[in-house]
């Protein structure tokens, strides 16, 4: 609500700045402003134009400004910038034309330029921050991780790893159906009666357990990419657990309240 109000206020300030600037240009055309024009005409035109530009930038700043923590310094910069530029305009109005000489011209120029630079720089920085924040909000919304439980995520990871294991070893889904044909080959006596010779060797085949661990993702690896993914997954799970805890505590509270009643 607060941000919406700020946005509408900002747009009004922007609009008033625009009106001031357009009136300054209109006034200059109307009075046919020249170097030799009356000082009051020059003060009015440049005063309105200078103040108008400051209001336009202030409006933009108000519309795009961020909330805390980003907005903490941004607001100060915006206020200081606006005051500095208005101070420049006021100083110009008071000094022109009598005191319009060195070093007063430098003071006015510096105050106004500094104010405009601060306002425009602040607006640009805020716009960039807003873009980044909007993108992350979009991702968080589309991710919809909250609807899955930790168990679901763990199962999904295991399923994906298992799928990659079986995909890597699958070739074609087509199965050749072989008809039980009558063979022309008559097996010899040994082929029919004797058993196949076998070599038995001692081997605990501990690779089976290792492979099970590897394909279920329970193996430690020194890989930055995998570590990062694991951390992200763990953070998602933690976030999910917190949400679940919250919902559990809120459920308990509701139950407690209903019991009290």
């Amino acid at each position, binding site marked *: 609500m607060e941000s919406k109000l700020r946005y509408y206020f900002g747009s009004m300030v922007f609009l008033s700045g625009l009106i001031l600037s357009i009136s300054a240009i209109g006034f200059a055309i109307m009075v046919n402003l020249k170097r030799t024009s009356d000082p009051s005409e020059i003060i009015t035109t440049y005063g309105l134009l200078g103040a108008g530009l400051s209001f336009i930038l202030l409006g933009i700043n108000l519309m795009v400004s961020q909330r805390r923590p980003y907005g903490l310094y941004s607001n100060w910069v915006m206020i200081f910038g606006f005051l500095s530029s208005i101070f420049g305009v006021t100083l110009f109005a008071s000094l022109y034309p009598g005191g319009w000489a060195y070093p007063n011209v430098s003071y006015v120029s510096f105050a106004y330029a500094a104010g405009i630079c601060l306002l425009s720089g602040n607006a640009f920085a805020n716009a960039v921050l807003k873009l980044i924040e909007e993108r992350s909000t979009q991702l968080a919304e589309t991710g919809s991780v909250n609807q899955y439980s930790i168990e679901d995520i763990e199962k999904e990871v295991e399923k994906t790893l*298992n799928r*990659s*294991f*079986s995909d*890597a*070893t*699958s*070739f*074609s889904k*087509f*199965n*050749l*159906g*072989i008809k*039980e044909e009558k*063979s*022309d*080959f*008559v*097996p*010899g*006596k*040994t*082929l029919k009666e*004797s058993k*196949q*010779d*076998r*070599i*038995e*060797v*001692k*081997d*605990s*085949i*501990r*690779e*089976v357990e*290792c*492979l*099970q661990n*590897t*394909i279920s993702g329970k*193996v430690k*690896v020194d*890989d930055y*990419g995998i570590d990062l993914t694991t951390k992200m997954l763990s953070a998602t799970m933690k976030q999910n657990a917190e949400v679940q805890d919250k919902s559990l505590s809120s459920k308990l509270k509701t139950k407690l309240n209903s019991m009290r009643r």
Partner: protein
Amino acid sequence: MAKGLDVGTMNIICAEKGKGDSISFAQQRNAFLEMEAGDLAQNMLNSAKILYTQKGDIINVLGEDAFKFSNVFNKPIRRPMKQGIISPDEKESIPMIKLIIERVLGQPEKDGEIAYISVPASPVDSNVNVLYHSKTVEALAQRLGYQTNLIDEGLAVVFSELGDFNFTGIGISVGAGMTNITVAYLATPIVSFSIARGGDWIDEQVSSATGVANERITAIKESDFSLDSEYEIGSVQGALALYYDALITYLIANLKKKLLEVAPPDAEFPIAIAGGSSRAKGFLEMFEKRISEANLPINISKVKKNKYTTSDSKDPIYSIARGCLIASLTREEAEVVEENGEEKTEKAKKAATA
């Protein structure tokens, strides 16, 4: 009980869990020899307990004995597979492979027993398509009642040999018909390919260079050859060493080319080598030397050595079947866990409704 089946150009090997902490391997040579049938020949074969089949007046001697008879009768043996796949030139290939698979794999203890079968990856230097071979072999095992899964030969080597490295590394299977290579990261293949050269290619090249018969070259290679030794110019062993080096160089060149096409993760990649053609003495040392000179785009931590002894399960010839068995047992355990989980959920649901 889950099983692993390695269908190779030279050998068909089945691995299954034995009694206690052991693996039981059943092996048959993937070859046969045609002979004329007759009462005398049949009696002789029966008394010598030799595996054979009869079709009309033709007898086909199967497996290891086919090699022995080939030397005795000076007749060429026939091979159902060529360059890693079912031979299109051999009309009896499928019935022969079927017989050998039935023999080594046996009947399943229960219907739907899991079996992982090794198949070659697509070759990079040949137009050969491995799909027909893969699906045929799978169908032959399926009709016995197995629930089959196919696995790359290279990946089977990774499963068998690189367990200590979290199944990250390069698995190379130097077979008779093909050489299969898989680069895996955490049991997931990154690159998988094969080259249409292996032990048979070496034999053929040496045979055509020296004029010695192919079978004789194979015999010399398996009994009287080491890559560490020095041989005279013009000798069979000298030519064998030369072509082994050519095969290794070609393999590494193709591996480098393939690795440049992908972006492998920044990890240490050990290499494990398996397959019958890597049994030659000094093979691993030569491979280690060539790989260190190759400047591959990944970090090779070591070349894992398989010390060959006939009684050791780490014999490079058994590695692939062992890798298939590991994959089968892992899948079987995963299914058991899944079933238990489902049962628990159902029980919990029933309890909740009650």
